[in-house]
């Protein structure tokens, strides 16, 4: 039974037999002290805070007043559970940092806070008296009728009693008839009472539901989690690079050194030839592992930043690349990494597909945004669709709230433009 909402219960035949009518009554009745408390608090804070605001002391009180909707709404959400087991979600965002200032800043900027403030005012001014009236009326009528015989006996010793101050009852049968009427009315009243509670609950739900703000919070969290994923991926990349560098590469160097020494000691034949071949193989493996490590995560990017790393890529490019990067200071690590790999992809594309004779990388950091252009004088026709590497680059940049713009008409030239904020919203650092 308790898994039903009041509204569902109301249309069932067994409504009167369950606890729901009582819950509805309790829901409406408990509004009265709660609303009264809110009213007193609001008035007190407004009057005292307003009066003292002249000497600035009152301003914190006014701020508390503005935030009064937050605890009120929290209580209301709990109270709603009396007649509606479907919980009402919290529309508030967790503050970005710990501490009171951050909490205040987040709350005061949220639409949900102000909606809750409005709700608190409505509650204090209109809702609770109305609910008090409804539930009080029902209790007074039914209670009055039911208690008629008792009152008659207690007050006038069985002579007469005024039923609901309307009708004068002169005898016990009349008094018991009134009580009986009360007993009949009680279940009848349970229905309007229930509907009143349903209406009240619907109002609460509409006003306090996590609406657009909740969606914002979800989008925010999605952005954050996406950034965390990329971050974890980067961390893993660096770990692999470190493991290769500190492990396999060092061992290969040691092996190559040992082989080199062995060649010095051994006679030229027959062992010398084999040693020379082994030595050469070790050398080739070292070149391969060096290139592999650089592709996974270049150390120069960590040590010297984006400009040096891009110069390095340009140096290796088959197509001559002019680099002109004006980056006065180091960028956040995720931005550096994403832009670096984007430029690597772009330059690799230039070398592989464009047929260009020259390429250039030009970029600047204006303190707010990093803008980098990669251009070539090749055949054009590049595209970001069809599972191309550029699609991956665009996805990667979008995690950082960045954009990728491509202009590549057939016949060229191709210009790729990366635009990334210096401090993306969801940065994990």
């Amino acid at each position, binding site marked *: 039974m308790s898994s039903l909402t009041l509204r569902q219960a109301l249309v069932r035949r067994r409504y009167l037999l369950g606890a729901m009518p009582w819950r509805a009554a309790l829901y409406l009745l408990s509004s009265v002290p709660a609303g009264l408390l809110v009213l007193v608090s609001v008035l007190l804070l407004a009057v005292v805070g307003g009066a003292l605001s002249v000497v600035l002391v009152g301003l914190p009180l006014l701020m508390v007043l503005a935030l009064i909707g937050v605890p009120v709404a929290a209580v209301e959400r709990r109270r709603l559970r009396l007649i509606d087991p479907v919980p009402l979600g919290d529309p508030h965002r967790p503050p970005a940092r710990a501490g009171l200032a951050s909490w205040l800043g987040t709350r005061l900027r949220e639409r949900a806070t102000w909606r809750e403030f409005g709700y608190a005012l409505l509650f204090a001014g209109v809702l609770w008296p109305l609910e008090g009236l409804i539930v009080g009326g029902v209790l007074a009528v039914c209670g009055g009728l039911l208690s008629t015989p008792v009152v008659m006996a207690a007050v006038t010793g069985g002579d007469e009693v005024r039923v609901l101050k309307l009708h004068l009852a002169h005898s016990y049968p009349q008094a018991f008839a009134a009580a009986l009427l009360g007993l009949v009315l009680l279940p009848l009243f349970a229905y309007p009472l229930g509907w009143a509670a349903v209406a009240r609950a619907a109002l609460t739900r509409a006003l306090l539901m996590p609406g657009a703000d909740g969606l914002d919070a979800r989008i925010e969290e999605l952005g954050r989690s996406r950034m965390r994923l990329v971050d974890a991926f980067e961390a893993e990349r660096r770990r692999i690079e470190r493991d290769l560098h500190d492990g396999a590469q060092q061992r290969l*160097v040691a092996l190559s050194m*040992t082989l080199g020494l062995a060649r*010095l000691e051994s006679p030229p034949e027959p062992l010398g030839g084999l040693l020379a071949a082994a030595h050469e193989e070790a*050398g080739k493996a*070292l070149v391969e592992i060096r290139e592999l490590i650089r592709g996974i995560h270049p150390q120069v990017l960590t040590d010297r930043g984006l400009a040096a790393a891009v110069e390095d890529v340009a140096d290796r490019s088959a197509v001559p690349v002019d680099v002109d990067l004006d980056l006065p200071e180091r960028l956040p690590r995720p931005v550096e990494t994403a832009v670096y790999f984007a430029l690597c992809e772009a330059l690799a594309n230039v070398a592989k597909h464009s047929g260009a004779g020259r390429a250039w990388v030009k970029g600047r950091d204006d303190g707010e945004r990093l803008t980098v252009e990669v251009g070539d004088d090749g055949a054009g026709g590049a595209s970001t669709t069809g599972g191309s590497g550029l699609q991956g680059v665009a996805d990667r940049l979008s995690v950082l709230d960045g954009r990728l713009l491509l202009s590549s008409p057939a016949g060229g030239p191709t210009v790729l433009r990366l635009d990334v904020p210096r401090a993306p919203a969801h940065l994990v650092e």
Partner: protein
Amino acid sequence: MLRVVLAEDSVLLREGLVGLLKRFGHQVVAAVGTAGELTAAVAEHAPDIVVTDVRMPPGFSDEGLRAAVALRETRPRLPVLVLSQYVQRAYAEELLDSCDGTGVGYLLKERVGKVEEFVDALQRVADGGTVVDPEVVRQLLRHRRDPLSRLTAREREVLALMAEGRSNASVAEALTVSEGTVSKHFGSILTKLDLSLTDATNRRVLAVLAYLRK
């Protein structure tokens, strides 16, 4: 015989290098694993040469290289041979820039395998020579590509005519453009060839042109 201070954080390689140097009759006076220890060991032993890795604890970034550059600032005559896992122009340039580039070496670690070449390079650095890994040289050269390739076709035409000793007016006539256009082209040629306009005396430009024609 050289007295060597060796800095390398991998124990395996450090021991290997000590053995290798000993085999060729050199003496490793200190073999350390961090940049801080390197600086201390140099102060203590005043070696003939320092051999150091680039990436070392505590940060596993380029501590070894930085320590080497710093050492050469305080002791300009101290030969330093840097062993690196990467071909990195930025690192090599930084090292070569320190104290006119004499007595420095930047070698890929894998070069150590060619033991005789390595020991030979060590000796040359100790004697005040400059040794740069062939791979790095290749990259340095590729970076300093033909400066003419940066010019547009039109700028090359202008440059070719100027190289014949023509005046701006004469170039303008030959290309049927205005003199202003020619001087604009000329300005951008100077910029692209890294010649600032203040140096643009005729003699200088002619020298450059003569050089470019070669």
